[in-house]
């Protein structure tokens, strides 16, 4: 079971919802948490994992053996990303344009190309005090492409360990990046449910529509959490009703919550009332997912 928490608009409370959901889920599940916002990962500030395992990740980029290369230009011609240039008797490789597809390696008639890892980020993982197997992708400053890091995060993050008291079902929670472009799609791929966190404002609604379209295209069932309920208008409610998106939880605008989040506490730690609300939320999600 894999649940993605997404929003479109930034700062609506994705991490707030994802971290609290993970904490209540530990009662019945072996939980794995993936922070997929590789540009600005924040979940560790709330879940406090011991991030003691580090893995360099990135893109497999070509290296051309100058002895074997005949400067035929095949690699430069087939590269759709213009990451290789052949001019005169020089072959240049631009690592940061390379997507690591391997076309040049396979197509080189002299087999002059080998590949090596161009590091663009790391995957850091460890266990949280509540026993959640936590992993985050972290993109290096100055890099542009987060998706390769995300792919590696999904593949290589350690699995949740089942608690000593018998085998528990595995539950994965992915905290998505903001926006509605390729990194959000990569986060949602392979998920069983998407939980949208939005706020009842024109910005929240506009961006919710964007991410809802992605979930529809990927045929993933979805539901909505309305955060800061009461600050804006009713347009989000109306949209959810007409789009068959169930509103599974409402979190009111409350200064105490804002202060607690600012200081790095999760919702369920802030107020016991949220513990039962998030348990209900998890159960609602499970009933929405076709078994």
């Amino acid at each position, binding site marked *: 079971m894999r649940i993605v928490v997404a929003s479109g608009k930034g700062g609506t409370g994705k991490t707030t919802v994802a971290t609290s959901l993970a904490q209540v889920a530990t009662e019945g599940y072996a939980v794995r948490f993936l922070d997929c916002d590789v540009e600005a990962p924040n979940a560790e*500030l709330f879940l406090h994992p011991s991030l003691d395992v580090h893995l360099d990740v990135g893109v497999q980029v070509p290296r051309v053996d100058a002895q074997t290369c005949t400067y035929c230009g095949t690699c430069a011609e087939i590269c759709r990303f213009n990451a290789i240039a052949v001019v005169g008797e020089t072959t240049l490789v631009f690592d940061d344009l390379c997507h690591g*597809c391997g*076309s040049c390696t396979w197509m080189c008639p002299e087999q002059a190309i080998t590949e090596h890892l161009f590091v663009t980020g790391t995957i850091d993982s460890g266990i949280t005090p509540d026993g959640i197997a936590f992993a985050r992708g972290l993109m290096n400053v100055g890099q542009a492409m987060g998706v390769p890091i995300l792919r590696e995060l999904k593949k290589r993050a350690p699995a949740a360990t089942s608690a000593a008291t018998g085998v528990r079902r595995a539950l994965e929670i992915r905290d998505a990046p903001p926006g509605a472009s390729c990194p959000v799609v990569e986060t949602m791929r392979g998920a069983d449910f998407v939980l949208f966190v939005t706020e009842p404002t024109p910005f929240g609604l506009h961006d919710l529509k964007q991410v809802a379209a992605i979930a529809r295209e990927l045929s993933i069932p979805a539901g909505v959490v309305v955060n800061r309920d009461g600050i804006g208008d009713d347009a989000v409610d109306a949209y959810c009703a007409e789009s068959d998106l169930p509103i599974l939880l409402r979190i009111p605008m409350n200064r105490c919550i804002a202060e607690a989040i600012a200081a790095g506490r999760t919702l369920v730690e802030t107020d016991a009332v949220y513990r039962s609300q998030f348990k209900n939320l998890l159960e609602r999600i499970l009933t929405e997912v076709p078994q």
Partner: protein
Amino acid sequence: MKQLVILSGKGGTGKTSVTAAFAHLASPGPFADQIILADADVDAANLELVLRPERVNTEPFRGGEVAVIDEDRCAQCGDCESVCRFDAIVETDAGWLIDPVACEGCAACVHQCPTESIAMQEQTVGEYAYSDSRYGPLHHAHLYPGQESSGKLVTDVRQRASRQALDEQRRLVLIDGPPGIGCPVIASVSGADLALLVTEPTVAGIHDLRRALKTLQHFGVPALVCINKADVYPVGAREIEAYCRANGIDGVGRIPFDPAVPGAMVAGEAVTAYRPDAPASLALSAVWERVVAALSETPAGSHDARVDQQRRG
């Protein structure tokens, strides 16, 4: 011509509300009729929602290509699947298919196919828009949900904005940036003269601010910082200010938490126009004045600098 970009690192800190307020505040002063607006947050383009401009022109944006299998020619050998590193080729009951969402557009499968059944197809992945807002021309764009190439679209939007600024000899391009530090952010800051980082005093806001500042430093763009919702967590606000001081970055003010801000958003107005006397509006006016002062201290924009250099030479 100068280019000011509003950024944050963390999403939802109030970039667009600040940009809209600046557009309004610039309209009467020395920047009257001098600004061009650009919304560089192309996958959550919200500036339009506040400014409610009149759409003048829309054009399709063609992004990268994706591979498509010609079913009639496909021999079902599966060679394409063996070279695809993006898990984009899937076997279905109807034969091999390419998942356009997963396809990276690398064409490895095209080269590999023994029956030449795969071709690359161009995709329309969004649209550019040019609008007239009450505070000046707005260049914006909408990337269709789930698409790639947001960096290229941002670059194009900025080029359109700066070309118009040069053609009409306008003095300022005001850019509403995207969250994060990746491809669209790099596209929105490269070549900008000054960045204003809108942060919030939360543990997450501070964490992301540091990464955003490092990104700006990496690309050589000077930065100012303002703290939104500063009173929600004063400890955090002080921490940000101390961090900025220690790193030689000017703080240009605190904006208090103010219900007038979401109110303005719902009303579709800049908060400084919606409630000029609201605490957030007063704070934003002060921030704008400091930003204007800092802008006049930055060296002339890169275009102007190059021209000056040519003329002297």
